[in-house]
C-alpha cells in the first residue's frame, strides 16, 4: 500500500499528462502482480465494494474520534476519506506493509454487518497516507486525473506493446488483469477474446485540407453533432463505449436493452428533438444525458436517445474490419433493419453528383445536429486511429462574433502564470454587456503574452483567481454553433468557442449585439 499511496499522492499534485503517464509507467514496471492490476483498476474507478460506503466510514470514525471534532474537521477538509485518514489514530507499533491485494480481498469479502470491522482492521495497519489510499480505493472518487485511456497508454508504454492491442484487451479482462501483464511481459500469448463484449479502437478522421476529393473514391455522409459510440454485444452482454473507450452503458440503459443482435456497430449517439419521433436535437440536449451513472425515468422520457449507425465492425461472430467500406456498408444496410427502429437508424450516404454539389449541400445544411460532412474512402478497411487519406472530416465553416473581453482567469500547468481563460460578452438592447462564452484557445504564444499583459494592465477588480478587466478589448470568437441556454444571463451558449483574432482596431461599442447572436441559434 505504501507504493500505491505514494503513486496517488504524486498523481494528485502532478498536472502534466506526460508526467502522470511516466509515474504510472514506472509503477506498472516495478510493482508485482496482483497489486499493480488492482491499483490500476482503482485509479480508473473500475472497482466497487458494495458493502463499504461513506456512511460505513463515518459510523466507524465515531467509535474512535469525537463526533463534533469529526464534523468540524470534515467541514474544513471537504472530503470524508481524507478527513478520516487524517483523524484515524495511529495504531501503536511498527506495521508490516499491507498489500493492495490483501486490502482488495478484505474489502471484497465484506458484508454489511462486518464491513466496519474490516475497514477498521485495515486502517490500523496503515499510516495517514496509506489510510487515504485505502479509503479512496474502498469508496472511489479518486480524482487523480487518470482516465482509462491514460492507463492503457501507460500499460502500452511500460511493456512496449501496441496501444491498439491494449485497447482491445483492456475491457475483455477483469481486474487485476493478470493475463494482460503476462502478455505484456512476454510470459504468455495474447489472450483470446471469443465471446467477450470488448471495445475495438475507433477509426478516426483527419480534417479535410485538400480543395476537393473525387467522390468516385470517397463516399460522403453527414457528420452528426452527437457523441461517437460503439455498441458491442458478445457473450450475451451489451456494452456501450465512448470515443476514449470508456464504458457509458449505465447512462443509456434503453439502448443497452434495445441492442439485441450479436454485433458491433459504430455510430453517433443523439437525442430526439421533440419528444419521441422528432429529428435529432442539438448537442445541447444530449448534454443532459451525459456523465450520469444512473438515469431517472424523466430523463429517459425528456431526452430519448438513439443511435445513427454508420459502420458495422462485426456481425454474427464475423469480424468485418478488414473488408473495404463498400462491403461493410452493404452488410450494414442489410443489418440495421434487424435492430429496433425506435432506437437505431441508418446514417444516410449523401447522394451528391460531384464535389461542388456536395459543397453546396454542406453550405446549405441547417440541421442543428449536422456538424459537417464525413468523407470515407470506399476501398478502405476499418483501421484503428487516424490514418492518412482514409477518412476526412469536413466541418461546416465556423460562425464568428465580435465580443468584448470581460473577465480573465489564470490557466493551469504551463499556463499557471498567464491569464489565459477569457470570458467575453456582447451588448444587450439595453446597452449592457452580457457574457456569452468563455474560451482558452485559438491564440498563439505571442498573442497569449500580449493578452496576459492586457489583463494585468487593465484590471478593474479581483475576485479570487478571476480578474474583471476594462471592457475595451474586442475578440473575434469562432464557434461551431450556438444554442439557447438557461445557464447564462445572455440566454446563449456557444459550442467550441475559441479566439480567432484579437481586434485591437475595433472599438468595444462596435462589438456584436446579443440579438445578432440569437439569429444564429440552431
Amino acid at each position, binding site marked *: 500500500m505504501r507504493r500505491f499511496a505514494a503513486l496517488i499522492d504524486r498523481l494528485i499534485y502532478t498536472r502534466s499528462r506526460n508526467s502522470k503517464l511516466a509515474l504510472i509507467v514506472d509503477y506498472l514496471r516495478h510493482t508485482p502482480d496482483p497489486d499493480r492490476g488492482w491499483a490500476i483498476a482503482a485509479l480508473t474507478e473500475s472497482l466497487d465494494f458494495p458493502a463499504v460506503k461513506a456512511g460505513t466510514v463515518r459510523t466507524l470514525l465515531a467509535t474512535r474520534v469525537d463526533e463534533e*471534532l469529526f464534523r*468540524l474537521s470534515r467541514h474544513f477538509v471537504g472530503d470524508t476519506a481524507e478527513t478520516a485518514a*487524517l483523524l484515524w489514530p495511529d495504531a501503536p507499533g511498527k506495521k508490516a506493509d499491507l498489500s493492495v491485494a490483501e486490502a482488495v480481498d478484505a474489502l471484497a469479502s465484506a458484508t454489511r454487518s462486518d464491513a466496519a470491522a474490516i475497514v477498521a482492521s485495515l486502517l490500523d495497519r496503515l499510516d495517514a497516507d496509506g489510510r487515504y489510499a485505502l479509503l479512496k480505493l474502498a469508496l472511489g472518487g479518486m480524482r487523480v486525473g487518470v482516465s482509462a485511456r491514460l492507463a492503457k497508454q501507460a500499460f502500452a508504454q511500460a511493456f512496449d506493446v501496441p496501444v491498439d492491442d491494449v485497447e482491445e484487451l483492456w475491457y475483455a479482462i477483469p481486474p487485476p488483469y493478470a493475463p494482460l501483464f503476462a502478455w505484456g511481459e512476454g510470459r504468455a500469448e495474447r489472450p483470446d477474446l471469443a465471446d467477450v463484449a470488448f471495445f475495438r479502437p475507433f477509426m478516426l478522421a483527419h480534417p479535410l485540407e485538400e480543395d476537393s476529393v473525387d467522390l468516385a473514391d470517397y463516399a460522403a455522409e453527414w457528420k452528426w453533432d452527437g457523441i461517437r459510440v460503439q455498441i458491442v454485444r458478445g457473450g450475451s452482454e451489451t456494452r456501450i463505449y465512448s470515443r476514449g473507450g470508456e464504458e457509458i452503458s449505465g447512462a443509456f440503459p434503453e439502448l443497452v436493452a434495445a441492442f439485441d443482435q450479436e454485433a458491433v456497430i459504430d455510430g453517433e449517439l443523439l437525442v430526439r428533438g421533440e419528444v419521441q419521433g422528432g429529428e435529432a436535437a442539438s448537442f445541447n440536449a444530449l448534454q443532459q444525458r451525459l456523465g450520469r451513472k444512473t438515469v431517472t425515468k424523466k430523463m429517459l422520457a425528456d431526452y430519448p436517445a438513439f443511435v445513427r449507425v454508420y459502420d458495422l465492425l462485426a456481425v454474427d461472430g464475423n469480424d468485418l474490419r478488414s473488408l473495404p467500406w463498400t462491403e461493410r456498408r452493404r452488410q450494414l444496410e442489410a443489418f440495421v433493419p434487424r435492430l429496433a427502429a425506435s432506437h437505431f437508424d441508418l446514417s444516410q450516404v449523401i447522394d451528391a453528383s460531384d464535389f461542388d454539389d456536395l459543397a453546396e449541400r454542406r453550405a446549405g445544411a441547417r440541421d442543428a445536429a449536422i456538424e459537417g460532412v464525413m468523407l470515407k474512402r470506399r476501398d478502405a478497411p476499418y483501421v484503428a486511429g487516424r490514418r492518412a487519406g482514409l477518412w476526412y472530416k469536413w466541418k461546416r465553416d465556423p460562425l464568428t462574433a465580435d465580443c468584448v473581453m470581460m473577465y480573465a482567469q489564470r490557466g*493551469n500547468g504551463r499556463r499557471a502564470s498567464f491569464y489565459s481563460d477569457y470570458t467575453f460578452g456582447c451588448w444587450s438592447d439595453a446597452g449592457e454587456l452580457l457574457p456569452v462564452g468563455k474560451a482558452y484557445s485559438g491564440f498563439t504564444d505571442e498573442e497569449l503574452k500580449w493578452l496576459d499583459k492586457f489583463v494585468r494592465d487593465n484590471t478593474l477588480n479581483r475576485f479570487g483567481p478571476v480578474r474583471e478587466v476594462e471592457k475595451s478589448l474586442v475578440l473575434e470568437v469562432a464557434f461551431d454553433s450556438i444554442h439557447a441556454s438557461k445557464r447564462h444571463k445572455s440566454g446563449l451558449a456557444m459550442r467550441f468557442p475559441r479566439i480567432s483574432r484579437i481586434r485591437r482596431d475595433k472599438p468595444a461599442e462596435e462589438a456584436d449585439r446579443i440579438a445578432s447572436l440569437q439569429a444564429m441559434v440552431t
Partner: protein
Amino acid sequence: MAKAGTWIEPHPHGIYVRPADLWIDPSRPVPRAAVTHGHADHARSGHGAVFATSETLAIMALRYGVDAGASDNAAFAYGDGFERGGARFSFHPAGHVLGSAQILMEYRGERIVVTGDYKRRADPTCARFEVVPCDIFVTEATFGLPVFRHPPTADEIAKLIGAVRAEPERSVLVGAYALGKAQRVIAELRGAGWDAPIYIHGALEKMCQLYAVHGVDLGELRLVSEADKAEMAGQIVLAPPSALNDRWSRRLPDPVTAMASGWMRVRQRARQRMVELPLVISDHADWDELTTTISEVNPKESWITHGSEDGLLRWCELTQRKARALHLVGRDLEEEA
C-alpha cells in the same frame, strides 16, 4: 477569587491591559503596544511606543522603518521585562520565529500568558518554546483541528532534497513566508547537509540578512535576479508564496512548485494553490502541540484566539477544561502558517 482576568479586555483588534493602559498585538495604531513577534498581523506600524524583544523591534524597524532605538520603544531579552501601572510584563520564548515571545503579565497575584503564535518542535532559527505556568493561558489555534498533525520536519526536508535530485534539469521553487519560514527552511536544509547556494527572491533578501546578523547561519544565498537561468537547474529557489505562480517564476528553469506550510496537510488545499510538491512545515503548533501545551501549562482557564477556535474549545470541553474563544480580527492565517 472572583472572575478571572478582569483586568484585561479582549477586543476584536487586540487585548487591552487596563492597569498599564497598554495593548498587546493591536491591529490598529495605539499609544503603547507590547508585541509578541514581527509578523504583520501582530506587529502593525504607527504605534507610539513598542515593547518587544530586541529581535522583534529589529524586524519591525526593517519592515516599517520604525526606529528600533527610539526612546519611546523598549527592547527586552527573554526572561526580562518591565513594570507599568502595577502590572509586571516579561517576554518568554515562543519558538515561532526569530524574537517571537509569549508575554507573561502578573497583576495582583494573577498570571496571564499571551502566546502570540508558537510551536513546540525544534527550529534552528529561534529559541525553543518554554512552558510558563499561569492562571489564564491565551493561546493561538491556527491548527486547532485534529486533522493537523505536522510530520517530522526532517522528513519534509528530505522530500524536498529528493525532489531536486530526482530532476536535475529543473529547479524546485519553494513558496515560503518571507519572515521566519524562509529562513527556517534554509537553515533546515543546511542542517541536512545541503551546502549548495540557495537562490532567493528579492523580497527575502533583507530578512535573511537580518537573521544572519542575529547569528543564524544561512550559508551562501544568491539572488534569482542576478543568476543565469541555467545555473539554477538542480537547485533550490525560495520565494514568497505570492510569487509562485506569478510572471516572476518564468525566469526559472522549468520549476517544480513547492510550498512550505501547515496547510499542505490537506491535499485539496495544496491543489488549489497549484502546488506540485507540498511540504508540511509550519511555524505554528499542530493539534498535538496545542493540546499538549494546554495540558502542560495547565491553566485555570484557556482563552483561544485566532484559528480553529471551535476545535480546541471542543477539546477543552471534552477534557473538562474551562475555556472561551476570543474573536480577534485581522489575523492573516493563510500566508504564513
